[in-house]
């Protein structure tokens, strides 16, 4: 099964999934992980197993005493309000719905884009390379969608901290191998990688760089990957 590799026990990227399941990740990284999960049923299963551990730990925890009127207070709260639709709390309703964007970009990233791929404020970063910088609330991070034409290559670049790259559409390759839709590449600060887009389909990917991603032990993170092998 193609899933075997991603499910292998010693997969370093599993920490990222654990931090997502436990709620420890900052918002931009959560956007990337949740979007990756939308593309990866195998990893969704891993995350729900981790969440089940969270559910177990909740059962196991020593309960803390509530104030005496706690239940009366909550009854008042649920009786005084109708049932507002909370389901949209996570995602904006401004998600673009054109076919091309829906096909390439799942939720929650689609809502964060806010408009169709064709109408984003793309900036040229080189021949055949375009970047759209997403606004982020957490200024420690930079989050971009990158669009590479067929066989286009990102020049060897350096970044502060590590870089997470999720393939949304198409594929790219670097020294560590090929990354297809739903695959994640984690590169440390020191990495000299020169990713090249697929010769036919090019590549659309989401990249996050940032200080807190500067994993303390860069040796562990070199060529960390979460591909399906």
């Amino acid at each position, binding site marked *: 099964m193609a899933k075997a590799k991603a499910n292998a*026990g010693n997969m*370093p990227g*599993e*920490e990222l999934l*654990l*931090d997502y399941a*436990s*709620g*420890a990740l*900052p*918002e931009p990284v*959560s956007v990337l992980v*949740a*979007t990756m*999960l*939308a593309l*990866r*049923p195998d990893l*969704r*299963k*891993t995350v*729900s*197993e981790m*969440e*089940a*551990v*969270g*559910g*177990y*730990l*909740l*059962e196991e*925890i020593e*309960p*803390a005493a*509530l104030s005496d009127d*706690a*239940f009366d*207070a*909550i009854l008042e*709260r*649920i009786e005084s309000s109708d049932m*507002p639709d*909370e*389901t949209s709390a*996570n*995602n904006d309703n401004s998600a673009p719905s054109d076919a091309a964007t*829906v*096909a*390439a*970009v*799942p*939720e*929650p990233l*689609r809502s*964060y884009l806010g408009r169709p791929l064709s109408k984003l404020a793309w900036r040229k970063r080189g021949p055949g390379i375009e970047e759209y910088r997403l606004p982020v*609330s957490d200024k420690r991070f930079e989050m971009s969608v990158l669009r590479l034409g067929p066989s286009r290559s990102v020049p060897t670049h350096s970044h502060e901290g590590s870089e997470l790259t999720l393939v949304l559409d198409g594929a790219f390759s670097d020294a560590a191998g090929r990354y297809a839709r739903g695959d994640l590449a984690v590169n440390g600060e020191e990495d000299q990688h020169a990713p090249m887009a697929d010769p036919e389909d090019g590549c659309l990917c989401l990249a996050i760089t940032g200080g807190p991603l500067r*994993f*303390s*032990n860069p040796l562990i993170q070199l060529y960390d990957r979460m591909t399906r092998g």
Partner: protein
Amino acid sequence: MPSRRSIYNAKNVAGLRNRPEIEKFFPAIDPSLCRDRIPTVMFEQANLETSSRELEYAPSEALQPVRTSKRVGRLILKMTHDQLIEAIAESQDKMAFRQLFEHFAPRLKSYLLRLGADPATAEDVAQEAMVMVWRKAASFDRRQAGASTWIFTIARNKRIDRLRRERRPELDPEDPGLVPAAEPAPDRSLQDTQARRHIASAMRALPDEQAELVRRAFFDDESHSRIAEESGLPLGTVKSRIRLALTRLRHEMKEFE
């Protein structure tokens, strides 16, 4: 003292299928409400231990004092947590909500305290999470997650929202852009308690230090750096140990599947 405790043994209770019998022993139960559910019936008596037996259906209106031939006590019809959430979804059942609240709200408060909230905030956020449980009950799907897992994820997201003032981005299971699983999710309803037992055994099978690291991975904010700070271990070591613990945990869980 089994003879005194089991005033309704399994056969007795299961045998109470016709209306006069049910009305005699369980006056609060309307047989027309009976459905194919299997909750637990507990008969609580003063000075006696609780006995619990399976019965076909337990509407929460039956939480009333009952009198049987010789003994007086309180009949508690205890649904599983999954069933309580479903009762809220179906009929805004406040008694069901109360049972859920009494079980989970003190645990949620404790969870939030461990994550560094002050007591007033912890209680307030626990309350808000329980309000979400009430409101979102209709979206609960026991095939996706058991009650405690579902409530954990609600509280986790509420905490991010309230204490970190960030949004919690989640995938949308209805999204046309979502890549569906090749095989449908297994129905966990039958195995929910089993699954919980498996996690419990898996956790117990971990060395103490690793179990504690897994706990801290869930109960400490800011990921692993604080664990490293407090345990005096290099961050890389903490991470690799958590990874090891997770690997073992998942291996143990698979053993039971």
